[in-house]
C-alpha cells in the first residue's frame, strides 16, 4: 500500500474515525484499537469499529499502490494532529507503515488485517434529510434521553418513519421530547421504527451536518440479522446497532390540548431560572408561581440560601404554584428554539391539578389548530406542604 494525501483532509478523516475507537481495548479485541486504512478503491477509506458502531470516512488520495493496513488509531490520530502543513505520504514497509510529512517521518507497527472484523454493510437507504435540520432535531430530542444504563431502552432516541414524516422521541421518564419533521423517503409508503443510541445519534448527526449536505438514513439489519441503522453524508458513514427493548407508548402521555397556557419570553426566563437555581441543591426544584401576567421564581428552603425573582409574562389563569427540576426546565427552554415558550398546563380551573400533571413546553401557541413540531413534556416535582 502506498498513497499520498493532503494533510488537513487526512487529519480530519482520521480524527473523525478515531472517535469510534473503543475506549477500553480488551485483550481479545486488540485489533479494534486500530484504524483500518483501505486504499483498495479509487479513494482512501479510513474505518473504525467497536462492535456497536462502525464509522467509515473517505478522503481523496493519490494511490500509487493498492492495499490495506491496520495501525493504532489513537497513535495515528495524535501524530496526524501534530504534523506540519505538507502533503502526507504513507507506505507499507513489511509489517510496518512509514508516514512521511515534510521532514517528519514516523514508522508505525501494523496489526494483522485478516484479524479485523468485517464491518456491517450499510443497509439500503430509506430516505434523505437535510443535514443541519436533522442535527438540530436530534439535539432537540436527545437532551431528554436517559443516561442511566440500567434502563437501556431509555438511552435511545426513537426514530419513527411514516411515509414523509420522520418523528424523533426520547424520554428519561422525567421529561419527554418529541420532534416531527418532513423528509424525503425513497418510497412514500415506507414505515419503520429504530431505537438508536442517543449519544451515537447526536455525534453522528452533528458530524454529518456541516456543509449543508444531505444525510441518508438507512434502517435495516446486519449480517447476523441484528437491527442496524446507518447514516451517511458526504464521505462519511456510520452504522450502529440499535437499542433493544420496547419504547414506552409515549403518544398517550402527550395532551391533545392545553386548557391553560403561559407565554414567556425565553431568554430572560432562562437567565432567571439559572440565577435562582444557584441556591437550589443538586436535585432541588425551582418553584414557579404564576399570577395574572406575572411569574415569581423561587428556590432554596428553610435556613439555607434562598433566591427569588419576578418576571412579566403572558398569563391569564388561576394562581398556580408549580415546581420543576431547574436543569430539566432549562433543557426544555433551550430546545424549543423560539423566542417565546408556551407552557401548557393540564387544567385551567384546578390549580392543584395543574401543578401535579406534566406541563408541555412548545415554541408556538398550540391553539392555531395544528400540533407543534416540537413538544417537550416535563413532569413537575411535588412540593411538600
Amino acid at each position, binding site marked *: 500500500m502506498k498513497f499520498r494525501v493532503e494533510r488537513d483532509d487526512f487529519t480530519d478523516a482520521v480524527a473523525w474515525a478515531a472517535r469510534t475507537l473503543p475506549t477500553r481495548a480488551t485483550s481479545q479485541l486488540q485489533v479494534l484499537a486500530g484504524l483500518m486504512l483501505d486504499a483498495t478503491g479509487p479513494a482512501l477509506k479510513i474505518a473504525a469499529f467497536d462492535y456497536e458502531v462502525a464509522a467509515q470516512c473517505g478522503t481523496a488520495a493519490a494511490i500509487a499502490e493498492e492495499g490495506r493496513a491496520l495501525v493504532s488509531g489513537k497513535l495515528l490520530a495524535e501524530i496526524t494532529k501534530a504534523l506540519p502543513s505538507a502533503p502526507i505520504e504513507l507506505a507499507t514497509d513489511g509489517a510496518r507503515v512509514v508516514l512521511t510529512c515534510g521532514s517528519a517521518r514516523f514508522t508505525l507497527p501494523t496489526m494483522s488485517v485478516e484479524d479485523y472484523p468485517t464491518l456491517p454493510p450499510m443497509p439500503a437507504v430509506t430516505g434523505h434529510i437535510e443535514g443541519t435540520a436533522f442535527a438540530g432535531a436530534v439535539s432537540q430530542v436527545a437532551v431528554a434521553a436517559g443516561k442511566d*444504563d*440500567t434502563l437501556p431502552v431509555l438511552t435511545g432516541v426513537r426514530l419513527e418513519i411514516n411515509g414523509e414524516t420522520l418523528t424523533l422521541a426520547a424520554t428519561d*421518564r*422525567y421529561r419527554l421530547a418529541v420532534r416531527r419533521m418532513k423528509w424525503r423517503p425513497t418510497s412514500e409508503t415506507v414505515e419503520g421504527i429504530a431505537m438508536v443510541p442517543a449519544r451515537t445519534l447526536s455525534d453522528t448527526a452533528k458530524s454529518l451536518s456541516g456543509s449543508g449536505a444531505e444525510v441518508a438514513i438507512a434502517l435495516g439489519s446486519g449480517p447476523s440479522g441484528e437491527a442496524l441503522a446507518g447514516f451517511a453524508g458526504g464521505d462519511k458513514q456510520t452504522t450502529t446497532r440499535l437499542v433493544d427493548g420496547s419504547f414506552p407508548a409515549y403518544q398517550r402521555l402527550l395532551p391533545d390540548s392545553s386548557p391553560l397556557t403561559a407565554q414567556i419570553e425565553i431568554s430572560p426566563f432562562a437567565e432567571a431560572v439559572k440565577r435562582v437555581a444557584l441556591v437550589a441543591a443538586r*436535585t432541588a426544584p425551582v418553584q414557579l408561581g404564576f399570577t395574572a401576567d406575572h411569574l415569581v421564581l423561587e428556590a432554596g428552603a428553610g435556613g439555607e440560601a434562598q433566591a427569588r425573582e419576578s418576571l412579566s409574562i403572558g398569563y391569564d389563569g388561576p394562581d398556580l404554584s408549580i415546581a420543576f427540576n431547574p436543569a430539566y426546565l432549562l433543557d426544555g427552554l433551550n430546545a424549543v428554539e423560539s423566542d417565546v415558550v408556551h407552557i401548557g398546563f393540564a387544567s385551567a380551573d384546578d390549580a392543584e391539578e395543574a401543578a401535579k400533571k406534566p406541563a408541555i413546553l412548545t415554541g408556538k401557541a398550540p391553539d392555531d389548530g395544528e400540533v407543534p413540531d416540537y413538544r417537550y413534556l416535563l*413532569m413537575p*416535582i*411535588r412540593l*411538600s406542604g
Partner: protein
Amino acid sequence: MRLVIARCSVDYVGRLTAHLPSAVRLLLVKADGSVSIHADGRAYKPLNWMSPPCVIAEADGVWRVTNRADERLVITLEEIMHDSSHDLGVDPGLRKDGVEAHLQVLLAERPDAIRAGLTLVRREYETGIGPVDLLCRDTDGASVAVEVKRKGEIDGVEQLTRYLARLEDDPFLPHPVRGILVAQAITPQARLLAADRGLGCVTVDYDALRGLAPAIPTLF
C-alpha cells in the same frame, strides 16, 4: 471520659520541645489513659497528645502527664470552666459496612424496589458456603438470589455465582434459580461479567429507599 475545658498553657518535653501559649482548650482524658488537648478546630486532631499508657499527676493548677519513654506533657491550668466525667461503657465499634447492612434491611422490606413483583422468602438464606443476602420469589415462581453490595464489583458477581451454583443443587428450592446483584452503583466490568453469566444487575437509590429524598415523580 473526662472533659475539661480550661484556659491553659502546655509544654511538651520529649523528642522535641513544643509550647502552646495560654488559651481556652478542651482537655480529654480517656479511659484508656490517653490525654489530648483540643482547640476549637482541626476536626479530630488534637494540638498535642500523649498516647497510653501514661501517668497523670494532678497538682494544684498543674497536670504532669508522663509516658513510658519519659516524655512529659505539662499542662498549666489558669482557669477551669468545665470538668465532668462520663462512663461511656463498651463501644460497639465502627461498622464500615453499615450502608450495606442497612440496604439489605430496606430491600428485605421492599423487594419490589429490586424488581416489580419480587417477594421475600427470607433474609440470609444459608447456601453452605455462606448466606445469600436475600432469597426472593419471582412472579413466575422462580427463586431469585439477591446479593446486596454498596458498590457492585467483580467480587460481588463472583460471590453471587458461587451461591447460585449451590442453590441450584438445593432440592428444597423452586427452580429455576436466578441471581440479581443489587448495589448503589455497579461497575461496567461487573455489569459485563454479570451479563455473561446471565445474572441481573439492579442499581438502587439508598436515599430514596431510606425515604430521605422524596422520589421524583415520573411521567410513566
